């Protein structure tokens, strides 16, 4: 049922950084895991 007139040319291209989207997603997730770990040890250290 997709309207063919509406279909825009797919402009999906590699990101400007880190080579591929997969790498970039991984960096975001690893950074987030790192942040949670830092929060955890920060709280533990000062408690």
């Amino acid at each position, binding site marked *: *049922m*997709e*309207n063919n007139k*509406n*279909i*825009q040319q*797919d*402009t*999906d*291209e*590699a*990101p*400007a950084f880190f080579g591929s*989207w997969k790498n*970039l*997603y991984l960096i*975001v*997730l690893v*950074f*987030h895991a790192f*942040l*949670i770990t830092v*929060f*955890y040890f*920060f*709280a533990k*250290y*000062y*408690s």
Partner: protein
Amino acid sequence: MLGTLSLIVAYGVYKTRNVDNVKSYLLGDKDLPWWTIGLSVMATQASAITFLSTPGKAYDDGLGFAQFYFGLPVAMVFLCIFVLPIYYRLNVFTAYEYLEGRFDLKTRTLTAILFLIQRGLAAGITIFAPGIILSNILGWDLNLTILFIGIVVIFYTVFGGTKAVSVTQKQQMIIILTGMVLAAIILVFKLPPDIQFSDAVSIAGKMGKLEVVDFEFDLSNRYNFWSGMIGGVFLFVSYFGTDQSQVQRYLSGKTLSESRLGLLFNGIIKVPMQFLVLFIGVLVFIFFQFIQPPIHFNKANLNKLENTVYETELAKLQQKHKETFELKQTSMRSLITAIDNKNQNEILAAKSNIDALMQQDSQIRADVKGLILQADDSAEVKDSDYVFITFVTQYLPIGMVGLLLAVIFSAAMSTTASELNALATTSVIDIYRRSIVTDKTDQHYLKASKWLTIFWGLLALGFALVASLFDNLIEAVNIIGSVFYGTILGIFMVAFFMKRVGGKAVFLAALLAELIVIAVFILDKMEIVSIAYLWLNLIGCILVMILAGIFEELFGKDKT
């Protein structure tokens, strides 16, 4: 403050002076780079409530609220992989437009209506919440404060549409981030000369204010690692993937890549930013351990006791509050010495003294609240939303007060502008142009978009003018969202991942799931069950998916 706000509005109006068709008005010119998208997405989510309520929350409960945002980066990655490519491929104006192609018109209309209900209510709160706090603290008339925020936002949103919203949000977010970083720095310098930053952090740690990650699985606990990572992912996928106020922000990106980078930028910055805002609340807590805090943070409530029979009782409580504060200060200094000497016994002794004094002070504050309620039984005595703004107005230099008030007004305006813009877009594209007036010119729909922006703006203003204060403002917005987002997300999840399910099954499933979520929410309020609100997102979404699967088996073969 007025200068900063005027410049931002003038810039937005100037940049969008050539907007003259529906596409340009509702989608911008699709020319925004990733950093504008990222800042605009952040500004839409970060309402004034974020900067008023969140530090107050940390003042009371510590950093644990940061866990609410733990699911956000995961949600951003999910959306970049699965959702953005679909919206870009179909070149849609709204997220709900996609549902008609996938299911049918009634499912698209139902989802659009669910969005309009929840976002329409939230828009009122995002104007009202800062309005009531700012008017109480600054002594301004509440209705005039609400009208000031509302009319300015309606003006530039009606004038320039989506693009005006995005370009003003970029400036607003820069002001917000600068203001909050400066507030944190000044707070550190405002601590007494003999208290180092490291002492402040140590005290906060010993007082349990730095507990930012809680791994204990408890369904009734609002904020822990699991509710954030599971319930939070569902909430944020739903909010960023299906709420038109967010979808519209990244659909105005130059390309799919720019939109993806904008969302990932949000995924990286959001958690540290919330941590900073909460940490400011913890620093305010430490500050008020050495500088005597007011006995009650909502000045307007205390004014109610003046020249009444309760005045003498209040004076007695003020005296007790002062004495307790002085004793607590001595114990705080003993705690710092004990920490410096690494003497565990002394640390425990000082901490136990402080705990006892804190309890005593809590009782005094509770007694003041009791007096306020005796003087006015309709008064809202919860004062945590007033903590940060009290600190700003009473202890920061004049220029900084103006900057931080500009931060709060900017945040109120940026969120409200996105909401009005999205409400108008959904009303025009998914309801008016699709089902009511289907064959008019582009100019007609452009005019309709502007009139609907005014309509939603006035409705939000009306709601803001009659709304009463919720238990905690930021939670009120999130709770309203959680009641509807799960169902909306469930419809989209079925659309994306359950290819054999058709329109009739998903429509019935969504109706039933929404009723069940509302019932669970009511049962929780009546204390018959205990389920933290973040889980409602998960329940709504899973229910729609399971019920749609079952209904498809029962009614099947109706696929559109």
